């Protein structure tokens, strides 16, 4: 079933892709092939691969249980929140929370996860900012 969904999704994607590729505006000066042909060809190839997968799917993969899937969604939410937090709160605070949350969800006790979060944030800050002089996100307090 998963493979049929994959095939179906990719097939729709391929058709959309071909449609959008045909919408590319071609300028006055163009080479014989132009900017449209290659994307359209890719769409066709994608459609062929998808059709095959749709019709001849592989055995079902082992999906994680709903609870674990929730963990993955949660981790993605944490990461998205992290990217928005970076410019607001600076590198160290955002990273402490993000790394701490991930570590907690990967099985650390809340206390150990908190320490891991601080440790990872400070560790990266020292190595990449202080030693290697890389630019990290700077919050209102300068770190």
């Amino acid at each position: 079933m998963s493979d049929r969904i994959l095939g179906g999704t990719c097939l729709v994607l391929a058709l959309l892709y071909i449609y959008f590729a045909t919408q590319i505006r071609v300028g006055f000066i163009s080479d014989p092939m132009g900017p449209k042909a290659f994307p359209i060809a890719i769409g066709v190839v994608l459609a062929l691969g998808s059709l095959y997968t749709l019709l001849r799917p592989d055995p079902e993969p082992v999906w994680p249980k709903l609870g674990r899937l929730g963990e993955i969604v949660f981790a993605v939410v944490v990461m998205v929140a992290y990217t928005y937090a970076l410019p607001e709160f600076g590198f160290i605070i955002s990273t402490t929370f993000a790394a701490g949350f991930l570590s907690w969800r990967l099985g650390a006790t809340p206390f150990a996860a908190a320490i891991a979060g601080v440790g990872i944030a400070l560790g990266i800050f020292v190595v990449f900012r202080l030693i290697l002089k890389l630019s990290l996100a700077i919050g209102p307090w300068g770190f």
Partner: protein
Amino acid sequence: MDVLASLADGFAVALTWQNLGLALIGCFLGTIIGALPGLGPSNGVAILIPLAFTLGLPATPALILLTSVYYGAMYGGRISSILLNIPGDEPALMTTLDGYPMTQQGKAGEALALSGIASFVGAFFATWGLVFLAPQLVKVALLFGPAEYFALFTLAFATLGGIAARNQAKAVIAAALGLGIAMVGVDHQTGVPRLTFGEIHLYEGIHFLIAIVGLFAISEVLLFLEHAKGEAPEASATKLNRITAPLSMLKKTAGAMGRSTIVGFIAGVLPGAGASLGSFVSYTMEKRISDKDGTFGKGDPRGVAAPEAGNNAAAGGALVPMLALGVPGSGTTAVLLAMLMALNITPGPLLFTQQPDVVWGLIAALFIGNIMLLLLNVPMVGIFVRVLQVPTKYLMPAVAMIAFVGIYGLSGSTFDLLVMIGFGVGGYVLRKLDVPLVPVILGILLGNEMEKNMRRALTISDGEYSILWGSPIAITIWVLAIVGFVAPVLIGRFLRPKKDVTVSP
């Protein structure tokens, strides 16, 4: 011998204190990356590219650092294979078969030392192979026109999809997805925006580093979240008695190392094969030749030496098409290609003629890195074993955060980080569905180059498509591409190790 003269020049480039230091750091980091389960050479190098890039290192030192990581990871993969029966990366899968039984027999130290030496032999001779074979390939490649290049790119996808994938249709999907992503952005030849939907961030296209780090590193973190407990594998039980290999063992395994080096190198040069196939074929072949008493799989030292020599030789061999043609043959070399592109170096025949100091400096660095790795690995293996005991619940968050730091350093843009997370989720889903990620990466990397060559060819022929198969070289490449894609369907079952979900791509 102008090859040797060039190599001597290369050593002059590589032998500076800064470069030696970078090689040492690279080897050390690489071994750790290879040793940690879940961080393979592709992931490791992928995370480090943006960092090396934002550090502002010049091309040659950056190359030296990252290729040392690449070679180091090939060495490191065996440590957890031997001690824990968990391959540190995919090529090290075969090493578990005889390495772990040796550990159970209390011969972990010997197995580690032996595999270190076998890795050295494989990598060292493969680097010599690279020195002599690459310039020959360059001579051929200089005859290539745009049509031949287009065929060559197709060959890379065909063989990669044919050999490396379990399901050809999924490899096709993967390649098309990658190529499709590469098309996003302003068309280089006519200047019209394509598939950007008016989003200004997309005009420059999606940066391949963002895609690679997302697909490899972030998806790996998500994959780990499936398993509730991020504990470190049990390692403390094994005691390392002596980390040397007795001479008699070396003598016994010399034949295995020699044969596997040759087989591994050839497997590495072939597009689409790479180190995993190298170690698999060398082990299987060695088993056929030497396993007269049925000792393979029960801790035969030859079963450790063969795959290790094979996979390291393949790692060297895989650099041949990558450097000489600009067409990577495996996942890790695809990531190395990304690194070259990030440094504004276009691999291929012109690299050898126009920037020989980069190529030969790199090759010299490979020799230096090899010797360093041998020196590092045999006496210091205890430290690396210690590193293995870092639980993934602390390791994976750190990996994710370093991935963010690297991509943030590239542009400082929130949009890029979101795209990276998107690729991470996509990569996770694709991996679950057994869609290979390497063709996606290759598509993103080569898409524009492939299209450019096709359009150039058609400009030359004024729109006549037959130019694409208009020369004997082009026809040969097309035939190889078709054979490379179709043949594995027929004989592929014998060529492929079984899938292990715990290892990285």
